[in-house]
């Protein structure tokens, strides 16, 4: 005959197992529901389209110049997607360990908007702006690199506007003015000047 205290212990353990099973099943359901919500977000497809040769205007801090370089990039057909890919290509170059123009580690471009007629809006993240090195030349090189690359590869752009975290900002890092639009003709002049060494 099983002693009474063992019966009680078994009953308690069985109850605990049942309660835990119920709890685990509830938790699983909750996790599934949460995961479903997260998964509902659209996932950007990898860029589709043929690889094309694009002109990237790469900033070199030493000796402070802007060089046009050809790069094979898979570019989608849509203008906005193309602009995004071009900007991503520049960022990848600047975040590389052998970067010629170092940007902060968490630097990113949140979005590129094509606004007719001819305005492109580049929305930088705050990590890029807040961590950017301060100086007229280094800040101007960043502005010129992004602007001239887009203007060269996407005909029809006449103005470029920079935002930081979706908001207008006075300067990039204390010098380069971000409060207004950059006219592409003026950027072209600037890029031309920056292509020659001091």
């Amino acid at each position, binding site marked *: 005959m099983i002693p009474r205290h063992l019966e009680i212990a078994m009953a308690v353990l069985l109850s605990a197992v049942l309660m835990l099973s119920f709890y685990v099943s509830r938790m699983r359901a909750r996790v599934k529901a949460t995961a479903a919500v997260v998964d509902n977000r659209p996932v950007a497809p990898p860029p589709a389209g043929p690889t094309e040769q694009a002109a990237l205007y790469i900033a070199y801090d030493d000796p402070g110049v802007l060089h046009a370089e050809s790069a094979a990039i898979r570019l989608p057909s849509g203008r906005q997607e193309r602009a995004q890919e071009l900007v991503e290509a520049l960022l990848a170059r600047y975040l590389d360990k052998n970067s010629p123009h170092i940007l902060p580690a968490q630097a990113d471009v949140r979005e590129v908007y094509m606004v007719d007629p001819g305005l492109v809006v580049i929305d930088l993240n705050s990590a890029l702006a807040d961590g950017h090195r301060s100086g007229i*030349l280094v800040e101007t090189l960043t502005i010129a690199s992004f602007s001239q690359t887009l203007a060269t590869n996407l005909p029809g752009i006449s103005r470029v506007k920079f935002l930081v975290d979706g908001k207008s900002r006075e300067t990039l890092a204390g010098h380069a*003015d971000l409060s207004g639009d950059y006219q592409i003709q*003026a950027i072209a002049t*600037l890029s031309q000047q920056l292509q020659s060494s001091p």
Partner: protein
Amino acid sequence: MRRTVRLHPSLAFALSLLSFALFVLGDASEPKLISIYSPIANYSLSLARRGSHDYVGLLEILEPLGTVSSRVEAQNWRLRFNSIEGMFPNGAARVRIHGREIDLSAPFLLEGGRGLVPVDSLGTVLPVFLAFPVVFHASGLRLFIREEGTSYTTQLESGTPARLILNFSSPVNPRIATEPGKLRMTFTRDPIIASGPPLVSFNNATISAASFVETNGAAEITITSAVPLLASFGNDGRRITIAPAPSATLPAPSANRNSAAAPQSPPPLSAPPSSPGATTGSPAAAPNRIFVAIDPSHGGAETGATFSPTLVEKDVTLAWARQLRRECEARLLRTMLVRDQDIDLQNDQRAVMVNVARPAIYISLHAASEGKGAHVYTALLSLSTPEQGLFLAWDHAQVQSLASSQAAAAAITAELGKNIPARAVVAALRPLGNIVVPAVALEVAPRNGDLADLADADYQRQVASSVVAALAALRGKLEAAQ
């Protein structure tokens, strides 16, 4: 028989002129305001003049402070604030609030469903609704509801130049206006209260007095001075420092001074050929205008680039600026330092100071750790200048001087290039675009990447000499344009 009255043309013109003048003068009178300060909100309301009394909407006063509703019943206006109800008979000077009879200084008025009470009675009416006392400064039309106010202290530092420091118990944001002999700070949203006598006199020739006055829903602090003043903010808006605006400096006209102060400096510049009657550059012969405005960038809380824990851009630019001023003075070039202390200056303030002084050229100084040598920048302006009729757009004020700026940048670059790497570039850099006279920015980096160069006196002297040599070559053209 009909009789036609014809108005003489000159009489018609005079009448039109009179009507216009009356219209303009009628509109020019400033509306009366009452300001309310409370821990919940600070706000201002317009007053309405009825007879010999000023009235204000009672619902508008109470609205930001709690739940308020009103309704009109026959000739009575009923107002409910939180749980307290008031009954205001139209045209009566006695009203009932929360069961109490209150006498107003003038009859209550009901206009278009809006209940107006005389301003003088607010001190009686509001405490019943709010259940705590209020303080009403009747002469200044300022009402303090459970608000102790922001006090301030004044402290005059009688150095050279004298500075007046105002420390406030909480951050403030006044409107600042200057006029000859006065700097006026108007506090509309800040509950500033006097913490001493309304007029404080200083035994100082530069800053002689500070006065406090309350008027039309605002507090005003007026600083009286013999020279133009400039205000800068610090300590997160809790401190305002008033100091003389940087003024022109003119080297002493003594030849001995030149030989003593700068024995190796080049001889004074020749007068520009276009200046008839001018002889070699003695101050008496030189035009009584500032030739160069030197602007050390950044300052105060805005440090610019940080090169090392002990070396920041604002200090480097100030040292360079002082060196450049010495070089200019050695050549008898009249100079002005936009900033000669470690103070906060906004770009707009810098531009206004320079545009008022109208120098022949403006030079903004920057320092950088990146790159080598010097970059000379001119404003990057869009090619299409917005049409503004008689006025220049603020962001394009530089457009008419841009060609001269580029010529100056080229000359300075050529002169600098004799010793260090140098290049002329355009840049979107404020306040270059806001300056009406020829304007350049000079960014100096170390010669060979060694940051110690930035604080090196020899390097500073070398760069300054090159810049001044270029300015000397351009002097004739720049002064002719000036």
